[in-house]
Structure formats: C-alpha cells, structure tokens
C-alpha cells in the first residue's frame, strides 16, 4: 500500500481566477478542480480547464459520488467522471465520506453517516466497486457535521480508518472540518489526528468557517483561523509530506489573497511538504 507522490502546495481552481492563472503563471504546485463543474459538454469551463491542465498537475474533487447512500451507485455519473479523468489525467480523484440523497434525489449537501458496522460494510463494498471501475484508488474526505446519530458506535476517525483500511482507499483530511466537527460534537481534534492511520493520508484541505460560539458551520467562505493553522501544524508533524491545498468555495477573493494564505502554510510546513517526482 503506497500513496501517490506528493504534489506540494496547491489551490482550488475557481473560475474567477482563470484569466489571471493563464496570464501570470502563478507559483502554485497544483490545482484541485471541482469535478461536477466540468461535467458539461463544452464551452468556457472545459476550454480553460484544458489550458490549465497543460501547465499544472490537477486532481479531481467531487461532491456527488454519494458513497454512503443506500441508493444504487450512479453508473452514469461514474462514466462521466471516468471520461473526464481520461481527458485531463488527474493525479488522483476524491470525494466525501457522506451521502447526498436517496430515492433518486440529490440534496446537494454532504450528509453524515451513522458510525456503525453496517455503514462501514456498505461503504467499503461501494468504494471497492468505484475503485475497480475507475481503475485507481480514490480518496475519501471527512465532512463537517452538525448531527450525531444515536446509533453510532464508533468515533468518526475509527469509522474513517476502518473504511480506508478495508476498502484500501486513501484519505483526504480536511483540517478545518476536523476543527468544526470537534466543536460541534465535543471531541478533541488532536485525538482525531492521533487516531487516523497516517500512511493513508494523501491530501489536506485548509479552509475557513463561521464560528457561532456554541457551534461552528463549515462555510468555506473565509480566511483560515489560527486554531486551524495550529491543527495543521500538528497534522504536518504527524503525517509529513502530504499535499496541502486551500479550498475556498464561496466569497472568492483575489488570487493574491489565496496565495498569501498558501504562503502561511509554507511558513508552517516549509520543506516538509514538497512535490515528489512521479514514481519517486
């Protein structure tokens, strides 16, 4: 079991920055794209994606796999995902450990699963089928959550570990989501970091959120706060050279602001995070 080579420091690709990226070739090691934005036949999104793919390594990040749903896997979606992957050759493909709807509906939200044996078995079987179909190991990301199910028997990290172990998939750790969920569910975020099997962590997400005092909501629409930075520092201590990126989904600032945030990550992690040669 090995990880993909690290890509270093990256950013989420957003349409607001297409022109600036192509005009200025910013010093960013790689970009993460939101897969669904490019599952369209043509036009501007695909046009810019093709040009950026010529210059930067890309990874594909999806929100619609619904790996935990009790509906059948959406074969048509998988087919589209695979066609996009064939075209842009991403270094890896990720989605979330969650469900997004049943009975054919998509609620377009990343809904948490109960942490049970039943859910583990269900997700593991589906991850293996998806990996088989895509011909590669995928990454699953921890989501921010606001509810806990009475039926849960495990901690979130035990649940994530068990799935990645049994399905032989990799982990995308969203540091901000750990912080948010820790606040909402009264657990120690450091226990989460300690609990996750380090050798499966392929990527970090860093993002901002909204703190309401008694709880926090993951909005991915603001700057990264100090306690998330310090959690990031601990994550780097523990996991080493894990590709790091800043994920801003809303309230998109100028590229320069995100580059400054990425500089902050560099100040914290330094050379411990760096691109590795393919097959290296």
């Amino acid at each position: 079991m090995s990880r993909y080579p690290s890509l270093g420091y990256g950013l989420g690709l957003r349409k607001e920055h297409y022109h600036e990226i192509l005009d200025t070739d910013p010093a960013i090691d790689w970009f993460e794209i939101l897969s669904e934005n490019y599952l369209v036949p043509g036009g501007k999104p695909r046009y810019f994606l093709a040009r950026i793919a010529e210059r930067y390594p890309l990874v594909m990040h999806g929100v619609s796999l619904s790996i935990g749903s009790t509906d059948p896997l959406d074969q048509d979606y998988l087919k589209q995902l695979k066609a996009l992957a064939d075209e842009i050759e991403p270094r890896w493909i990720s989605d979330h450990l969650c469900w997004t709807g049943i009975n054919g509906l998509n609620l377009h939200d990343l809904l948490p699963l109960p942490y049970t044996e039943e859910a583990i078995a269900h997700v593991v079987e589906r991850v293996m089928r998806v990996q088989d179909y895509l011909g590669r190991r995928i990454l699953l990301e921890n989501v921010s959550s606001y509810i806990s199910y009475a039926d849960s028997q495990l901690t979130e990290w035990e649940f994530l570990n068990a799935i990645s172990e049994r399905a032989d998939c990799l982990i995308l750790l969203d540091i901000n989501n750990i912080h948010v969920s820790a606040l909402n569910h009264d657990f120690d975020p450091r226990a989460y970091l300690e609990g996750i099997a380090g050798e499966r962590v392929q990527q970090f997400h860093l993002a901002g959120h909204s703190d309401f005092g008694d709880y926090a909501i993951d909005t991915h629409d603001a700057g990264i706060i100090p306690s998330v930075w310090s959690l990031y520092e601990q994550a780097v201590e523990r996991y080493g050279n894990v590709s790091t990126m800043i994920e801003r989904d809303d309230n998109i600032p100028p590229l320069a602001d995100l580059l400054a945030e990425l500089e902050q990550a560099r100040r914290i992690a330094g050379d411990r995070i760096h691109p590795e040669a393919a097959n290296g």
Partner: protein
Amino acid sequence: MAERSLRDIQEALQRHLTNGDEQVRELIVGTPRFPIETRLGIYSDAYRLRLIEALSDAYPAVHTLLGDEGFAALGAAYLEAHPSSYRSIRWFGDQLAHFLAERPPWRDTPLLAEMADFEWALRGAFDAPDARPLERETLRRIPPERWAGLRLRFAPSLQALRHHHWNTVALWRAIEAESDPIPPQALPEVETWAIWRSADQRTRYRSLPVDEAWALGQMREGVDFSSVCAGLVEWIDEAHIPARAAGFLHQWLEDELIADIDSVA
C-alpha cells in the same frame, strides 16, 4: 429501541429536509449547548439556501424582477415541486420556465416565464458541446448544380428558436447592464430569437426577421435548401428569393451558426 437500518436513517433525514417530517429527531442526539432543533435547522437552512442560490445563479434577471423576497418565495415553491435529481446542481432549474408559466401567482405575469426561458437558453448555449464553425470556402466549393440538395448541420450550441411576446431581451439587457429599469411591455408582433455561442466562447443572441426565422427553423430540422427557397415565396417575390436565401447563408456563416454541411446529395 428497535434497530434502525442505514436506509431507515437516510429516509428519515431526507424526509425531514424535503418536507419537515420530524421522525428523524428520535434518531439523533443533541446537547444543551447545541440542541437538536439547531442542529437540524443548519441542514434545513443550508439545503434551501444552497438550491435557491443555484437557481439565482441560473436566473439572475428573474431574481432581479422579483426582488430578493419574491425570488426566495419562488425558489422555495420550486424546490418543493421539483427537488433536484441531478448530480450537478447546474441542471436543478431546468423546469423553472414551465413552473412559472403554470403556477399562480407567477403565471399571471407571463413575462417571468419568458425571461426564465431566455436565461435557460443562454445557459444552454454557454456550455453546449464545442464545434468548429464552417468555413466560407467549404460552402463556396459546392458546384451550383448541387446547391438544391444542400442540408446544413448547425452549431450544437444553437438553442431552439425562442418566440417572444414581451420585451424580455431589452429588459434582460438593462438588468445585465445595471442601467435604469425599463417597463415590461407586450410586443406589437412576436419576435423570434436565435441564441448560440460563437467560437470565441461568447454567448450570442439575435432577433430574426420572420422569413429568416422560418428558413433557419426549417434548415435546422434538416430540410434541404431548394425546399426552403420554395417556401420563402410566402414572404418574398420569387425573383428575389435566391438573393435573399444567399443572404441568410452569408449571415449564418458570419454568425458562426453553421457547423458543417450535412449533405449535398
């Protein structure tokens, strides 16, 4: 307590989000600091907000015409009637024009449905499949005796022609330019609009004279050039038809509406 399957849990939460069913409350735990209502409320609010925002992204002019409150009410009613079944949220609003045309009170303002339909067509043109426009030279090389059988293939971004009864496009332009609002007005005559995307990735739209609209509609359906010319007699003197029809082709080339020659048999 009876054991609940993963399916039961998902059914209960989805029912809560889509129609407010409260059974899910028995399946989750809260704390005094962060009670169950607040926890569930975050998901319900996020669900509605996210989908209404996606609708607003697709229909900015409908949003402007209705105002924030009016649009939120429309969004909530639409979401209840047409919850998303799409992987990509981009398609969520696909029934809005139809919904506006049928559902009171919005159906009493027919301009709204026409605006929604126009905005949806713009979106359709925006990310339709790419195609290289036909070069003038290719058309010029067709020998005169074979022109009669000419059939064209149009750019995949060319939307079905839209027939407008209102000054929808003028309103849309004013809203887009954030200039002073102009009053909605019924048009003296129906206007037909072509909406497509040119090779430079720009979304384009143009109103068509009645004979050109008919000719484009026919050729888009695969009718051959000579039949279209014959039909133009409804609007034009027979003597002027060849020049008029050649003018259409010239304009469609300029517009980058033609993707290919389908056949000249």
